[in-house]
């Protein structure tokens, strides 16, 4: 119990330390440049304190419970014995059967960690407010999570197959560019943003463990070179999935509109 409380204070101090530069910039400009009276200062400070304490508890809980178990599972799923790699035989041909669970785990962990990602919650709340409710909080988060899930699964496949990262990323860019032409204008900026918000507190540590585990255990992969790249997938695929979600919603709305028109004519 006492150890838990001490751990919490460590996490709190670490969070405060991370936040200091932000606080410095905000206060510096407010006091030296803007010099305006702040209405509801008390309430803002209380809200900020809630964010810091909340984040510290959140990180502490993850460190204590989910990260150790998640990392251990990533290590076990990528262990040579589980993958059926015979380190004595020097010839190694990847058999995709062994990797089905790895891909499934990658997809599942990508989806579930994204749903719990606090910065995505923030962007979804803001998008919902700004669009007057047109962008649903849950809908956007699920769309992003599906993107991350596909991204991480593809990224693990890339590590297993050993194909160059840039081919995938460049192909992804081409898809994004084409989608940009046909997606409703109002959603494009939000879709681009959703790529950057997905990968922070929750996703990065678990996904990194998975990537490093795969790259160190599969013969012929170099963990230093091949372990990277999963985050890049996780930042690119949500852009595609959010635009696809917007396109589907628009298509669906149009179809309902057409049906209504037709039934009115009849």
């Amino acid at each position, binding site marked *: 119990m006492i150890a838990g409380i001490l751990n919490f204070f460590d996490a709190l101090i670490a969070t405060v330390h*991370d*936040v200091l*530069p*932000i606080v410095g910039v905000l206060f510096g400009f407010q006091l030296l440049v803007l010099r305006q009276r702040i209405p509801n200062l008390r309430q803002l400070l209380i809200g900020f304190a809630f964010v810091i304490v909340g*984040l510290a508890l959140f990180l502490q*809980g993850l460190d204590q419970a989910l990260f150790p178990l998640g990392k251990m599972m990533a290590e076990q799923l990528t262990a040579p014995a589980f993958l059926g790699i015979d380190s004595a035989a020097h010839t190694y041909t990847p058999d995709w059967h062994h990797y089905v669970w790895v891909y499934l785990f990658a997809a599942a962990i990508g989806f579930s960690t994204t749903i719990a990602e606090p910065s995505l*919650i923030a962007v979804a709340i803001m998008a919902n407010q700004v669009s007057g409710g047109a962008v649903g909080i849950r809908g956007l988060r699920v769309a992003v999570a599906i993107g991350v899930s596909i991204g991480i699964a593809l990224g693990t496949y890339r590590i297993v197959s050993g194909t160059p*990262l840039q081919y995938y990323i*460049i192909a992804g860019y081409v898809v994004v560019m084409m989608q940009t032409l046909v997606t409703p204008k109002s959603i494009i900026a939000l879709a681009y943003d959703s790529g950057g918000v997905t990968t*922070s507190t929750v996703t990065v540590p678990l996904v990194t463990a998975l990537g490093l585990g795969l790259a160190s255990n599969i013969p012929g992969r170099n963990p230093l070179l091949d372990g990277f790249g999963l985050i890049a997938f996780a930042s690119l695929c949500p852009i595609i999935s959010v635009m696809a979600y917007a396109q589907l919603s628009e298509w669906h709305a149009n179809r309902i509109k057409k049906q209504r028109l037709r039934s009115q004519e009849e």
Partner: protein
Amino acid sequence: MVDSIKDLLPIIAVIVFFQLVVLRQPIPNLADLLIGTALVVVGLTLFVYGLKTGLFPIGEMMAYGFARKGSIFWLLLFAFALGFGTTVAEPALIAVVNEAGKIAAAGHMIADTELAIADYANGLRLTVALSVGFAITVGVLRIIKGWPLHLLIIGGYASVVIMTGFAPPEIIGIAYDSGGVTTSTITVPLVTALGVGLSSSVHGRNPLTDGFGLVAFASLTPMIFVMGYGMLL
């Protein structure tokens, strides 16, 4: 509270399923897991509450403050300081650049000494922080001038693709990943609120189409800058 529990259910389901069904092992330290999950739930609830009462209003208040002051110079300086200041101390970034230093030494790009590795890592960290400062500055300028976001982003993609052809292979994976790790949990809500606040106070801008996009810049420019760093060294 109920929402936070719902947010966490998927992770718990995934971990329990893979542990019990796929790996066929009991769950170690069940009590620790339960306490930890409870902490995560409480933390997330507090965070979301603080977001609405603290972080969002602060970001919007700064945006309105600068709009009233009417000085583009100070606004851009603020944007740069926010991007640079929040990134340079970001723990996820520090972890990635240290890893990158080891890769560079292993690939014989730099001498394999601790000093050379630390120099390389710090240079990389500064590069990424500069790139995020640059990104928020350009993003804010875009909101004020009303430049179309997709043209800038596509231009950025084109630079990434072209630079990939010339950058040393060792740096490409790190460069691509550095785009994702720069935006932290506190920066994202602040920057989003700043963008939305600015676009609602500048005449003729729409908060939905113009207010978003700052985070997108902040995840794009690090790739370009990091590859540039790899090419210069």
